[in-house]
């Protein structure tokens, strides 16, 4: 008992904010789930419409396009930012001069708001103003880079901007992983005559698995909830070509005044997120069990 009293400040600092934010999260999620089953339009109302909001949302072109885009954007973004982060981390790991400065530069985009990133890239990628015009003005007049206004390629502009923004984050995690590799392992491999490529492939990278999984999960949940970046960069256009689920939710709730359907779309997003997080939790659980058995 005296121990608990002595450690009361610690408990208070940890548990009070934690419980508060958990209560917020849970109560608002439950509230949204409830709204998704009501006929709410401009303001929340009670009532029960079953799954009607869900079927209505899933039948719209907007949602179908948004879902397909999410699959493409999610996998391309996660994979490419992983590769970019890993390559940057390995290059930085070569005990080079000015590492701190470089690390700050690569991490810097993370400190920029997505709205700023989106706006800047929307000018850079605009064919009439940005990169395409620059290259054409330099003399290569047939150069084309008009993905921003090309329906089929526009989603890739979001991938580009998102990678620019967050590969620094992956790099930081990987770099920490690379630095924590046991020096004895590396020495042993060197004594056995392994070259640098072989050493990374066989010795160092395999130890990075847990970090890789963490990066994937964090980036995926970012991808699923992407909103501000798309809104600033393409606003879902050209046409509906770059719709994403979060845009659909916002659009239904706040532009069209259909709270019930917006809530249904939000719950669908939550389900997608769970589809990512539950396997991760299961994997963590299995790993821990294996570790305690060993």
């Amino acid at each position, binding site marked *: 008992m005296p121990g608990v009293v002595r450690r009361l400040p610690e408990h208070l600092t940890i548990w009070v904010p934690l419980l508060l934010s958990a209560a917020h999260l849970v109560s608002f999620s439950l509230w949204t789930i409830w709204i998704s089953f009501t006929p709410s339009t*401009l*303001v*929340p109302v009670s009532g029960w419409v079953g799954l009607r909001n869900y079927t209505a949302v899933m039948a719209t072109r907007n949602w179908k396009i948004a879902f397909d885009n999410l699959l493409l954007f999610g996998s391309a973004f996660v994979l490419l930012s992983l590769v970019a982060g890993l390559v940057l981390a390995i290059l930085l790991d070569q005990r080079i001069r000015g590492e701190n400065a470089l690390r700050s530069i690569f991490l810097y985009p993370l400190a920029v708001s997505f709205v700023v990133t989106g706006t800047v890239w*929307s000018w850079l990628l605009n064919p009439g103003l940005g990169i395409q015009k620059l290259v054409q003005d330099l003399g290569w007049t047939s150069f084309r880079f008009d993905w921003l206004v090309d329906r089929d390629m526009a989603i890739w502009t979001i991938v580009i901007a998102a990678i620019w923004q967050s590969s620094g984050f992956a790099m930081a995690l990987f770099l920490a992983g690379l630095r924590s590799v046991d020096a004895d392992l590396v020495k042993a491999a060197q004594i056995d005559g392994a070259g640098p490529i072989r050493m990374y492939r066989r010795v160092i990278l395999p130890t990075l698995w847990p970090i890789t999984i963490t990066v994937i999960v964090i980036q995926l949940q970012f991808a699923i909830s992407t909103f501000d970046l798309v809104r600033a960069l*393409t606003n879902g*256009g*050209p046409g*509906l070509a770059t719709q994403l689920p979060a845009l659909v939710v916002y659009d239904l709730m706040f532009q069209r*005044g259909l709270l019930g359907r917006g809530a249904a779309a939000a719950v669908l997003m939550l389900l997608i997120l769970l589809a990512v997080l539950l396997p991760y939790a299961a994997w963590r659980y299995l790993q821990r069990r294996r570790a305690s058995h060993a």
Partner: protein
Amino acid sequence: MPITTTRRRLLAGSAAALALPAFARAQGAVKPRLTAISQWSAGSDGAAITALGKKFEEKGGIWQHSPVPGFTTEMMNKLRAQIIAGDPPACSQLKGPEIAAWSKIAPTVNLDALVAAAGYEKVVAPDLAKLHKPGGKWIALPLQIYSTNMLFLSKRALDKAKADKTPVTWADFNDLAEKMKAGGVTYPIANGGTRPDDGQKFEASFAGISPAAYRAAIMNLDKNALEGPEIRAAFAQTRKIADWMDPNVGAQPFATNLKRFVDGDMGIMIQGGWAQGVLRNAGFKFDDFIIVPGPSDNSKPVFLLNADAFIFWQRSEPDLQAGQTLMAQLVMDPAIQTMYSQITGSIPVRTDVDLSGEGWSDGQRRTAGALKDAVANNQAVLSLAHNMAQENGLTAAMIDVLTEYVKNKTIKPEQAVTRLAEAVEGAR
């Protein structure tokens, strides 16, 4: 500044309510105060509402306007939050069928007595009046009118095309655009890439081809009209317009291209009169462009009506009630409407305002003339792209189809007709 209903204020309010008849209360037992929200924060719109606020203050009122910049829907989010919190503004911007929809979620002020005292009903176009009195009672007041299908013709582009007259029908329009292209105008159509922009191209085409079919299909959602030959022709005309636009605009607003338009690098804008306010505010002169009514295949003007309005929310505070009375009187005042429209480029709601005097542009005079003719010929219809024809949910579902059609040249007009009909069905 949030309004807190303190017990003392409540007591004072009820005492005043008991002690004085409503008329006397409104007449200045208290200093009128108005809390208002609108989307008008900058440019000519911001200047106009600031000028209105000055007039309000000159009459002894306290003006508390909180602008919410961005699209109208952004303003609506604040309005919704305030209504749910039980603290609506005394007055807010709202327009079209949304007036009826929102009046169901919070009590509004019955303005019938004030409207009658001002003799306002006689001078407002009947279709417009109907939108502001859902359930037969005036609860909102229109402030200014735009037509969303006015043609803004760049003088320099007209010179390049060697055109000597302005287009009347769509055939004339297409002819002019071809001439501009041949004369060296890079993009005959000056446009933005926003959703309302795309919607305007379609509604101008459709209403210009047949206002009767437009009314049936878009305003009344008549199934036959939604799949009729006129709407197919409208999509075909929209495609022509889209082909003359600069594909590089992305999601930029139309105002980004004003300089290219004035320079004659772009030729024609299909815009509402607000573009005049924006052009003037950007420092361009009336000599740089001509404004004429949108193309109409039967040669009589077609007016795509877009009107901004204020709705009045019920408040119990005597000072706010007095403020609402003063505001309503100001909004209906011809001098105030004149001042407002001369800043924004719109035309007054009152049909009895004389536009021949100084301060009005030829474009505004033509717009007002077009409205008169269009009302006489039953060719004044409500704009879809600017949320006048349908509630937001349905409008957005239809604009989805239109914006995709404008941006995706592989969609055929027939397919677009089917998609639009399906979108209407799905959103109802």
